[in-house]
C-alpha cells in the first residue's frame, strides 16, 4: 500500500519556510552548474560553427594556434598541387592562404580596456570557402587597398571599428569600409583584409599563417593526410577539417571552464545536500507520531521510506526547475573572453543544450537522493510503539 | 495589620486571534495580602491563567492597573518588566519547563545569572534552594533523569532561588500522580508558612485548593 502523494505535498505546505530555504539552496547549485556548462557549450558552439566539414585547413604541426603557425609560399604551392584541392569555376584552386595576426583595440565603454583582436588577411576564394560570411553594411574592401571589413562583434564593441573610421596598425591607417556578419561564429570577432596588403604591412612577404581549401569531394581527409605523410616537404604540416581545427581551438577553454566549474560545483552540492539532510531530519523528527500512526495503520516500512525519498526528490526537482529557469535567462547575454586557443577575443552566448538540462536534472535528483536517504531510512526504521509514545 | 501585596484594579483583557477579539477578563478587582495563599479556580476558558499571567508580569492588561509590592507593573517597559520579574516573582508551570540541556543545579542557577552575585554566592543560593525542596542528592542530574515530581521540585527551587516575595503557580500538580502532588503541595505550604512567601495558585485540583487560605472562583472572566 502506498502512502498517497497528497500526504507529501501537504507536508510541504506546513513547513514552508525551511522547505523553501532548501529549495533555494538546491536552485543556487543547479544555477551555477548549468551556467558553467552553458558557458563551455557556448564557446564550443561558436567555434565549431566557424568551420565547415568540407574545408580543410593546413597549419604547422607544432603550432599552438593560427598566430604561431608559418607556411612559406613554396609550401603553399606544394599544397595546391595535391589532387584533393577543389577547383573554382575558372579552374583555379579554391583555396586561401590566410595571414592571421593580433592587434590591440580599445573596448567601448566604461572600463575601456585594451583587447586582442584577430586580423585575418584573406584572398578572394575565402568568401566562397566561407559562404556564411556576408557584408551587411557599407561595402566589401577593395583588393589592393588598405581597407578592411570588421565582424559584427568587433564593430559593436570596439572603438574606431565603425564604418568610415580608420584603424592604425603596421605604420599605416586602414579604413573600415564595411561590416560583415558570420552567423554568430568565431569569424564575427575578426577583422578581414587583403592578404597581400597585410603581408606587406607586417613585413611577411611570401608567408602565410594557414592555408584553407575546399576538398574536391567530401571525406577525402584520409587521402589528404596520406599525401602529406608521403611528402618530405609537407611533413612539418598537418591538415584537419576546418570544423575540427576550430573546435580544437575551443577545447582547452571549454575543458578548463567545465573542469573548474564542475569541481567547484561539486563542493557546493555537498553544502546543498547537507542543507537538504538537515531539513529532512527535522521533518522526520517532527512527524514521528504520524509515522508511528501510519505504520500502526498497516503501511509498510518501505512505503514510509518511499514517501520521504519522494519528498526529498520533489524538493530537489523544484529547486532544479528554479535554477534552470533562472539560468535560461543567461542565453540573452553575449559575453566575450580571451580564447586561449587563438589568444584573441571571442564573443559567444551562453548556450543551453538538452544535454545540459538533462545533466542538471540528474545532478539535482542525485542531490535529493543522497540528502534524503539517511533521514528516510531513519523514518522507516522507527519502532511503532516508541514513535506513538513520543507525543 | 496585613500589608497589601497585590492590587488588581478594574482589569480587563481580551485576546486577538486574526481579526477576532475574544474577551477573557472583565473588570476584575482583587487584593492579595502579604503572606496570603490564594487559590484561583474555575472552568476551562474562565480566564484564571490569564489573571495569573497578568499578576506575574508576563502579560499586560488592556484596561486597569496592577500594583505588586507597590510597583505599577503595567506601566513598566519590557526591559524593566524583565528585570522586575527576575527578582520579584517565581513562576511554577504545570509542565515544569526545565531547560533540558541543563542539570538541576544549572536550571536553578539560571535566574541567579541575572543578578550580580558571584559564583560562590550563587552556589550558596542554589544549594539552599535545592535543600529546601529536598533534592540535594540529585543536583547534577538532567531533567530526563528525574521523575515528574522531582522535576517539579527543581522548578520550584528555581522559582525561589532569587528569594522573590511572590510565587505564582499554574496548575502545579496537573501532571503529577497522587503522591507526588501531595509532596508538592506540602512544599508550597511550607514555603508559605515558614518562608512567608505570598502564593497565587491556579488549580483544578480540590486537594490543592484545600491547602490555600482563600479560594476565589472565576467564571467567564468575572470573579465570584
Amino acid at each position, binding site marked *: 500500500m502506498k502512502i498517497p502523494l497528497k500526504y507529501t505535498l501537504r507536508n510541504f505546505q506546513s513547513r514552508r519556510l525551511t522547505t523553501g530555504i532548501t529549495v533555494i539552496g538546491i536552485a543556487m547549485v543547479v544555477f551555477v552548474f548549468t551556467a558553467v556548462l552553458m558557458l563551455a557549450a557556448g564557446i564550443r558552439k561558436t567555434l565549431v560553427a566557424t568551420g565547415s566539414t568540407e574545408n580543410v585547413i593546413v597549419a604547422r604541426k607544432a603550432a599552438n594556434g593560427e598566430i604561431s603557425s608559418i607556411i612559406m609560399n613554396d609550401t603553399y604551392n606544394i599544397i595546391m598541387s595535391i589532387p584533393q584541392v577543389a577547383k573554382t569555376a575558372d579552374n583555379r584552386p579554391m583555396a586561401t592562404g590566410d595571414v592571421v595576426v593580433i592587434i590591440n583595440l580599445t573596448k567601448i565603454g566604461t572600463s575601456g580596456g585594451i583587447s586582442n583582436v584577430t586580423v585575418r588577411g584573406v584572398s578572394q576564394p575565402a568568401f566562397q570557402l566561407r559562404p556564411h560570411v556576408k557584408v551587411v553594411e557599407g561595402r566589401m574592401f577593395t583588393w589592393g587597398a588598405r581597407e578592411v571589413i570588421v565582424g559584427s562583434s568587433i564593430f559593436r564593441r570596439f572603438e574606431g571599428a565603425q564604418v568610415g573610421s580608420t584603424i592604425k596598425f*603596421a605604420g599605416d591607417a586602414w579604413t573600415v569600409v564595411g561590416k560583415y556578419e558570420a552567423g554568430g561564429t568565431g569569424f564575427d570577432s575578426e577583422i578581414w583584409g587583403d592578404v597581400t596588403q597585410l603581408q606587406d604591412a607586417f613585413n611577411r612577404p611570401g608567408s602565410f599563417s594557414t592555408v584553407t581549401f575546399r576538398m574536391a569531394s567530401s571525406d577525402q581527409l584520409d587521402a589528404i593526410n596520406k599525401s602529406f605523410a608521403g611528402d618530405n616537404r609537407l611533413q612539418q604540416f598537418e591538415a584537419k577539417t576546418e570544423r575540427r581545427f576550430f573546435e580544437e581551438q575551443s577545447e582547452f577553454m571549454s575543458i578548463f571552464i567545465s573542469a573548474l566549474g564542475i569541481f*567547484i560545483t561539486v563542493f*557546493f552540492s555537498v553544502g546543498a545536500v547537507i542543507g537538504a*539532510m*538537515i531539513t529532512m531530519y527535522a521533518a522526520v523528527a517532527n512527524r514521528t507520531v504520524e509515522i508511528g500512526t501510519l505504520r500502526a495503520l498497516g503501511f509498510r516500512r518501505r512505503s514510509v521510506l518511499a514517501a520521504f525519498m519522494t519528498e526529498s526528490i520533489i524538493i530537489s526537482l523544484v529547486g532544479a526547475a528554479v535554477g534552470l529557469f533562472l539560468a535560461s535567462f543567461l542565453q540573452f547575454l553575449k559575453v566575450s573572453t580571451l580564447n586561449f586557443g587563438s589568444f584573441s577575443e571571442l564573443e559567444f552566448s551562453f548556450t543551453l543544450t538538452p544535454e545540459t538540462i538533462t545533466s542538471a536534472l540528474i545532478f539535482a535528483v542525485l542531490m535529493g537522493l543522497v540528502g534524503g536517504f539517511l533521514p528516510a531510512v531513519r523514518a522507516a526504521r522507527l519502532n511503532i510503539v516508541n514513535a506513538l509514545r513520543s507525543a | 495589620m496585613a500589608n497589601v501585596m497585590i492590587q488588581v484594579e478594574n482589569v480587563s483583557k481580551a485576546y486577538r486571534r486574526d481579526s477576532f477579539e475574544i474577551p477573557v477578563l472583565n473588570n476584575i478587582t482583587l487584593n492579595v495580602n502579604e503572606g496570603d495563599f490564594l487559590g484561583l479556580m474555575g472552568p476551562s476558558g474562565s480566564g484564571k491563567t490569564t489573571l495569573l499571567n497578568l499578576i506575574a508580569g508576563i502579560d499586560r492588561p488592556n484596561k486597569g492597573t496592577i500594583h505588586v509590592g507597590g510597583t505599577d507593573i503595567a506601566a513598566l517597559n519590557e526591559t524593566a518588566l524583565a528585570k522586575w520579574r527576575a527578582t520579584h516573582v517565581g513562576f511554577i508551570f504545570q509542565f515544569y519547563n526545565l531547560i*533540558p540541556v541543563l542539570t538541576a543545579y544549572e536550571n536553578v542557577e539560571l535566574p541567579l545569572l541575572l543578578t550580580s552575585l558571584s559564583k560562590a554566592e550563587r552556589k550558596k543560593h542554589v544549594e539552599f534552594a535545592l535543600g529546601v525542596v529536598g533534592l540535594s542528592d540529585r543536583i547534577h542530574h538532567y531533567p530526563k533523569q528525574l521523575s515528574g515530581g522531582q522535576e517539579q521540585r527543581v522548578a520550584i527551587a528555581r522559582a525561589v532561588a532569587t528569594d522573590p516575595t511572590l510565587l505564582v503557580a499554574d496548575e502545579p500538580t496537573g501532571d503529577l500522580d497522587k503522591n507526588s502532588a501531595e509532596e508538592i503541595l506540602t512544599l508550597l505550604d511550607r514555603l508559605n508558612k515558614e518562608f512567608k512567601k505570598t502564593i497565587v495558585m491556579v488549580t483544578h485540583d480540590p486537594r490543592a485548593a484545600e491547602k490555600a487560605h482563600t479560594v476565589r472562583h472565576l467564571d467567564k472572566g468575572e470573579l465570584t
Partner: protein
Amino acid sequence: MRILKLMFKNTLRHKLRTFLTIFGIGVAVMAFGFLRTVVTAWYSGVEASAANRLITRNSVSFIFPLPLAYKDKIAKLPGVETVSYMNWFGGVYIDKSQFFARMAVDPETALEVYPEFIVAPDQLAAFKNERNSCIIGADLAKQYNFKLGDVIPIEGDIYPGKWEFVVRAIYQPRDKMVDGTQMWFHWAYLDERMRQEMPGRAGNVGWYIIRIKDPKDAAQISEEVDKLFQNSRAETKTETEAAFQQGFVAGTGLIISLLNFMAFVIIGIIMLILGNTMIMSARERTKEYAVLKTIGFSGSHLTKLIAGESIIISLLGGGLGIALTYPIVGLFSLVVPKSWFPIFYVEPMTLILAGSSALLVGIVASLFPIQRSLRTSIVDGLRFVG
C-alpha cells in the same frame, strides 16, 4: 558571558544536526578558499610585478616584434638603469599539453632586471658562456626531473624547426610569489639561426624590459620611450610591468567574474544552511525562550544567546573549512602541472575573507530567529506546540 555555557550546551542538543551544519559550512568555506586561491593565482603575475620595471612592446600588439636597434636609444634616457629584451619562443616540448614559458633572452642583462631569479655564480657563468645553453627554474626541473647537463629538445612553431638546449643553470625563485617554471636561452642563438633560415626575421626582439632607478618616474619614462619611436614602422607602448600583466588578466575577465560570482553564491549557500538550522532550532525552543523570559531574561539576553550559538557554529564551520582548504589546494597542485599554475598557494587575505565571511554568516543567520523570539509574546511562546 555566563550564558556561554548555555550557548554551548544548546549546540550539543542535536548533535547530528549541529555536526551536519558545521560540516556543511566547512565544505562551503573550503570551496570558497579554493576559489579565491584560483583567482589570486590568476593575478599572480600582476602581484609579482616590480614597481621599477617597465615593459616596452609593439603598440599594435605583442605578437609584432621590435628592432634590436631600439635598445641603445632607450638606454640613453635619463632614469634608465638597465635595458634587457626577450622573445617569446613558444614551440612544443613532447606534446602540446606540456606547457611552460620558453623565452630567448639577453644573458648579460636578463638576471639583472629579474633579481628575483637567484642563480649560483658558477652556473650563471656557464649559462653565459655557452651559446646553446639554457637556464631553467627549480620547479620546472623538479616537474620534469631535468638536471644540469640534460638536453631539452623543442619543436619550434613561431620559429620553425628542431631546437636543442643544454641545461647549464637552474634558478631558485626568491619566494613563493615568483614563477619557478620558466626556461630561458640565448637570444643570439635564435637570431643566428634566423639569419640563416629566415633573414627577414633577424634582428628583432619581442619586448624590452627596462629597469628604472626610481619607480616614481615610471609614467614619465614610459612616455619618453614611446615618443622616441612615434611615427616609425614599429611604434611602441611602454607601461609598468603591473599594467602589462594586468592586460593579460583583463582579457579573461569573464572567467574571473564567474569565479567571483561563484564565491558569492557559496556564501549565500552557507547562509542558507546555517539560517535553516537556526530557524529550526529557534522554533523548537519557542517555549523555552518564553520560560527564560518569564524567569527574567530580557530581549537582549535572548539575542546574545541565539546570536552566540549561531556564531559558535559558523566559526567552527569556518575553522574547519580553512583547515580543509590547504589539503585541497595541495591536491590540486599535485594533479595539475606546476607550469600551468606556477604560483598557487593560499594567501593570508583568503583566510581573512573566509573567516570574516563565516562570522558575518553567523550573525546574519541568527537575525530571523532573534527577531522571531523577540516578537513572540511570553504567553504565545508558552502555548507553542510546534
